[in-house]
């Protein structure tokens, strides 16, 4: 299962949707895309993980790196995720306390962050 990445603008946020498996083999493509967007000034980002079937620690690391860069530019990186298989990985690593994670775009952008 390949990883597909698309992005679009929505209400002042850059929404990046990933679909497929984010593992050590495919994560570099996600890192490159997020870096390009951050570089281009998209520091307020919502990453939609609804179509992600699998994520490993390298995939998580890419998200952490994006969050650091976004925050250090006074932006933020927030997540949309309801898949219990993916949420469980955030909980197993404590990263559910690092990221704002909402069930929808509206919920995640409305959260305290």
């Amino acid at each position, binding site marked *: 299962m390949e990883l597909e990445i698309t992005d679009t603008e929505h209400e002042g946020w850059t929404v990046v949707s990933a679909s497929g498996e984010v*593992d050590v083999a495919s994560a570099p493509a996600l890192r490159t895309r997020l870096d390009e967007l951050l570089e281009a000034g998209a520091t307020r980002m919502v990453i939609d993980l609804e179509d992600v079937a*699998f994520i*490993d620690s390298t995939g998580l690391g890419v998200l952490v790196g994006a969050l650091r860069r976004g925050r250090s530019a006074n932006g933020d990186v927030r997540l949309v995720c309801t898949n219990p298989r993916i949420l469980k*990985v955030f909980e197993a*690593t404590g990263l559910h*306390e690092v990221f704002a994670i909402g069930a929808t775009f509206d919920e995640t952008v409305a959260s305290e962050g």
Partner: protein
Amino acid sequence: MVEIVLEIPPRLDYLAVVRLVVATAAALDPPLPESRLDDLRLAVTEACSNAIKAHRPDAADEPVVIACHLDDDLFRVDIHDRGPGFDPDALAALPEATDPRRLQHESGLGIPLIKVLTDEVTFRPGEGGTVVSMTLKRPPAPPI
């Protein structure tokens, strides 16, 4: 006891095959429940990606070996690389999630994840490298 062995070249693009084989083996009767299969897929990905990265470049012709052992009550998978070995107890812990320094760390989640996701994990030296052994309990077979 039943054994299913997979040998792959030390390359990260084979991880999807590894996940598939290990999860298929673990789904044999009596199958691990779906949520434990998820745990296994991720733990195996982490251990196998470490093994592939640790594999010595001059041993690139030798495979990374993934051996699944199916016992009555236990599913065990051993991952064998030809790398320099390491001391898992010497790894520094990551900062707490609430510590702003947490964001400085993009790596180092593999071994902690393996420990949380499996029922037991051991790391030991073996034939020119490391063997990571991960065990998950199988559900009891239904009575006949």
